[in-house]
């Protein structure tokens, strides 16, 4: 078992990982940038080491500084969290070569599944089909003829970038050239790789993802599905699970194929297969080779500690599943932004009041007086509500958001409250474009 784990991340996920380490009686090393010197993960951790200036390139993406920090503090493993270096195959490889265990799949798995084009190819071998199109298109002419073949509207996507960067919807051939060049430039700057591909644009898909966990002894489990269709700017803001309103005849074959693929591809640890779902058909879009932001939904629904198991599996322990009655969970992401203007809202939290009671879980680093800096992601809190049924979980979530008070900065709390009360949300008639496509503004409905 590991003696000391360095956590190569910040914010709520760094706290989350420290808590899992403490359950396993493992010492923790927090890293932090100059801007994060007053952060909670620094205060709570057994050890903490400053690795650089505020910009991510000088701190949380600074591989030499992080590896040195691990060596100086004699950490025997690194947990990357999500974002930053979590899906960086080169970083995983450097850890492997430095005799530090990278808590996640091996670098070869990350390289294979981190590139969306090679991930799609790998899963096609197991009869898991992507969105029509989805092959690499190196030149403008090739891309254009591919777009013509699958038919407009099409989506241009970057092979490596996430979070909607390098992504463009193209409605007709006239707009194609400009969108193609814009997408390439954006992808290049987002992840230093301009590889892009074209896929058919689905107008009203749901985002459904499959949580997988796999140990080194061939034991693979699929822990239900999550619906993450409520998104803004291609980023999830509400996630829920397990998904219960898709016919078993459609979902079960996908589960079996994914289980087989995970085994045969030698994937180890936790991971997520992401799909679009429309007209009773699943289309594979990409895999996340890490713990996800919304892993908490599965944890609450299945009463399992995925982060703890991720560490145990990395340490070579066999995975053991204890089946418990399934519950329902919903997660809301609280972000520091002005939802009307679409602008970020850094600043000082002048007052904060957290919701509580049974079936409410809060993952956050916030405290009164903390400065939300402009350097990092706007997500400042996750609220997870659970219940025996979706209706129960929804009631609990509404109450939690009513109780939650954050002052000093703008947040999306009232937007979330509106969504939770819309008829289309209550009846789960949702899709990934619903927040932008809604022609009429959302109106207040008394709960």
């Amino acid at each position, binding site marked *: 078992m590991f003696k000391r784990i360095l956590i190569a991340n910040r914010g709520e996920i760094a706290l989350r990982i420290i808590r899992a380490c403490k359950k396993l009686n493992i010492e923790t090393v927090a890293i932090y940038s100059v801007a994060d010197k007053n952060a909670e993960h620094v205060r709570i951790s057994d050890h903490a080491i400053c690795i650089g200036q505020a*910009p991510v390139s000088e701190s949380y993406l600074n591989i030499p500084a992080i590896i040195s920090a691990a060596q100086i503090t004699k950490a025997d493993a690194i947990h990357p969290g999500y974002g930053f270096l979590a899906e960086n195959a080169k970083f995983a490889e450097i850890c492997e070569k430095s005799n530090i265990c990278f808590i996640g799949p091996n670098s070869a798995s990350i390289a294979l599944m981190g590139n969306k084009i090679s991930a799609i190819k790998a899963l096609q071998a197991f009869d898991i089909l992507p969105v029509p199109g989805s092959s690499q298109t190196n030149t403008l002419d090739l891309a254009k003829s591919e777009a013509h073949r699958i038919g407009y509207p099409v989506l241009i996507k970057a092979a490596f970038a996430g*979070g909607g960067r390098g992504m463009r919807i193209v409605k007709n051939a006239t707009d194609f050239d400009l969108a193609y060049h814009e997408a390439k*430039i954006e992808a290049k*700057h987002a992840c230093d790789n301009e590889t892009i591909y074209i896929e058919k644009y689905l107008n009203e898909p749901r985002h459904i993802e499959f949580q997988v966990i796999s140990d080194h002894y061939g034991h693979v489990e699929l822990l239900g599905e999550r619906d993450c269709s409520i998104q803004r700017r291609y980023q999830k803001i509400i996630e829920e699970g397990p998904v219960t309103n898709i016919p078993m005849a459609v979902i079960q074959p996908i589960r079996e194929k994914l289980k087989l693929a995970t085994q045969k591809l030698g994937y180890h640890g936790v991971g997520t297969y992401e799909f679009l779902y429309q007209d009773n058909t699943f289309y594979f879009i990409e895999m996340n080779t890490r713990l996800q932001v919304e892993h908490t939904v599965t944890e609450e629904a299945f009463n399992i500690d995925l982060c703890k198991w991720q560490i145990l599996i990395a340490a070579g322990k066999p995975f053991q599943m204890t089946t418990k009655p399934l519950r329902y969970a919903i997660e809301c992401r609280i972000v*520091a*932004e*002005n939802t009307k*203007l*679409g*602008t*970020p*809202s*850094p*600043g000082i939290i002048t007052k904060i009041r957290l919701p509580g009671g049974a079936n409410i879980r809060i993952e956050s680093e916030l405290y009164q007086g903390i400065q939300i*800096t*402009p*350097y*990092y*992601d*706007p997500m400042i809190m996750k609220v997870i509500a659970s219940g025996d049924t979706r209706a129960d979980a929804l009631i609990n979530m509404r109450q939690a958001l009513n109780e939650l008070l954050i002052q*000093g*900065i*703008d947040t999306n709390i009232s937007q979330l409250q509106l969504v939770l009360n819309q008829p289309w949300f209550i009846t789960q008639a949702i899709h990934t474009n619903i927040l932008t496509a809604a022609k009429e503004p959302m109106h207040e409905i008394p709960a």
Partner: protein
Amino acid sequence: MKPIDFSIIEELNNFLNTHQLKRIRIKNADTEIELESHSISKPYENSTVITPANNTQTSTHPCITSPMIGTVYLSPNPDAKPFVDVGHTVEAGQVVCIIEAMKMFTKIKSEHAGVISKVCIKNQQAVDFGQRLFEIIPHV
């Protein structure tokens, strides 16, 4: 150089508060004093993407100020030319720079038509709320 008369600072501060100004600057042969108020409304309360040019009686030129804390980019991408430079004519609503905060990129637009007379920041510099980005000579 004459010693600074500190009573003028208090006087200027009163003027700033009375007129609810963000910033004031006076200059003569010996002295240059710049005062900035932090007591006015917090960032974003009435924020718009279009920045108000700082048009006080005392400043020599109106300027385009930053509506947020963040990192400023003077060109659309590292290989491209700057959006604007000294001597360039800008239209009202024209993009003059981009500010990155929390992984989001906000285009900063000029509120006035005019000629850029000074670029007050460097590319990729960290900027504060209300910090001066460009000075502009407006078209009359």
